[in-house]
């Protein structure tokens, strides 16, 4: 049996600001991870990454990141993605999480 596919989101950095963004199902980029498109099929995920990478004039370095789905909302599985979501631990106020509160 093939290994089950871990759900993913597409993430990148914004070209102008450099900050962390996620790809939505409407081919747009969001700063709210909860609004990211959740990809549960490997073939579809590969195609969506190509769609994301086509937006060269908006983003840098798009890639697929593993997520856990909790109540329909994606959450990072790896601490690196957790830090990208939260911002630096030495200045919590510089992070996105703090900015949104």
């Amino acid at each position, binding site marked *: 049996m093939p290994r089950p596919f871990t759900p993913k989101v597409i993430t990148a950095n914004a*070209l102008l*600001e*450099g*900050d962390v963004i996620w790809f939505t199902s409407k081919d747009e980029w969001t700063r709210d991870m909860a609004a990211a498109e959740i990809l549960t099929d490997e073939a579809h995920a590969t195609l969506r990454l190509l769609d994301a990478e086509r937006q*060269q004039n908006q983003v840098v370095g798009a890639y697929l990141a593993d997520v856990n789905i909790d109540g329909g909302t994606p959450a990072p599985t790896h601490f690196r993605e957790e830090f*990208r979501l939260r*911002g630096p631990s030495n*200045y919590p106020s*510089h992070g996105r999480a703090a900015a949104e509160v």
Partner: protein
Amino acid sequence: MYRYSEFDDAFLAARNAQFRAQVARRIDGSLTEDEFKPLRLMNGLYLQLHAYMLRVAVPYGTLSGAQMRQLALLAEKWDKGYGHFTTRQNIQYNWPKLNDVPDMLDALAEVGLHAIQTSGNTIRNVTADHFAGAAADEIADPRPVAELIRQWSTDHPEFQFLPRKFKIAITGSEHDRAVTRAHDIGLRMVEQDGAAGFEVIVGGGLGRTPMIGKVIKDFLPKADLLPYLEAIVAVYNVLGRRDNKYKARIKITVHENGIEKIRELVEAKYAEIRPAFTGIDQQMLAGIEAQFALPDFTDRDTQPYDVAYKNDPVFRAWADTNLTAHKRDDHAIVTVSVKAHGATPGDATAEQMRLLADLAAQYGHDELRISHEQNVIIPHVARADLPALHAALKAAELGTANVGLISDIIACPGMDYCALATARSIPIAQEISNRFNELKLEHDVGPLKLKISGCINACGHHHVGHIGILGLDRGGVETYQITLGGDGTEDAALGERTGPGFSYEEITPAIERIVLAYLEQRDSAEETFLQAYRRLGLAPFKAALYPEANEKNAA
């Protein structure tokens, strides 16, 4: 200090205009990221985890007050109000916007600073002894030579696409404060028959394959330096491996070919190119040297210092740790700790930078240095002015008396910022610093260099820390390995791994156990941690670190 010539100004203006156009073309879509990335890297612009990062070279660690003020301006105007001094005497801005970077570079050019060759496979910013020009133990100030190397290496047409990055460090003192043995080329000034020259060390480096550099030339006359450097880099440029990024540094080239063969090739190349160096470089060096003349010192009575030292224990503690002997007895070199307990190592706010510039103007002949240990130096202060200087520093949280102690930690940015990192470094540094401050032990422990890297690339120099910490990702969990016994001085040594790593929660208690074991085992308060380690070896520290293993062995 070196002042830019018309040539320097024109070169920088042209280069900045070129980069401004490249940024515009990236934004309007004419350049893809693949095309733009090498161009931005050549100008010091990285993309990190949360934002772009601009790495500005502080040439051989030397800054004037005006330059420091401009760094403060950049922090305030285009960043989040602070800058991060790095282990290569650079400053990094963690939050610039792509659109703003050309303006930032123009602002830097106004004070003779740039970000050229702070990235890419080129010769990087030359680092130097941070006490250069002031140290009592110095043969001569190495900075004129460092400036000559900066001019020679900047935009050097042959060396813009080396197999890998290339780092040169230089010291004018017998006591090596510039970690010359862990650089691609290390230059240590030595004297022979009354003439100054260099011991040339090649093939040192940290990273995933740490190596102590080897002496390729015992004594190189000063006048032969540039052609000899050019010969080394030319040989490496041809011989260095381009097939494998991890084997591309000159340390591997030296290791695989042997120092004898490298020496032979370098000597042959040197013989070939030496005649082309007709002495223009030496004329230029003479011009540069004149600009690095010592300030006009005046004799000062040290009495205010003596009185404060005797009567004020806070001042005394600071004087004992943060001062270094100056060329003149009535002066001192001040190391300002940018490591207040619990703060991020190397981060300075715009206000702190301005205060340092003001204090340098008032008490220090307008000179500042950045150390690879991420502190700021005011190199020429009359002892009589030290009490006033200390009071001003203290009020700005810059008066911490911990230089050379366990809380004077070197830490790379780690996974809080860096795209390459595999674990965090900064919060580990903060926690260890806070813990030892609580214990009130660090002055009793004495000299102890703790260095933390958040990945195998070793920007935090963990291999040469008396205690080194390396953060890794082990199965999706931050894990920290400890090495002991490293040394970055003239007695350079690589630390030895203690054994299995520790989790994020376990690492600070583990460090505490090592230090307590040292206090228990040292033969006197005079025996430093490193000396005790060299006498005792790893065993007692392993026993303290892994008590479970002892119990198992005893059973």
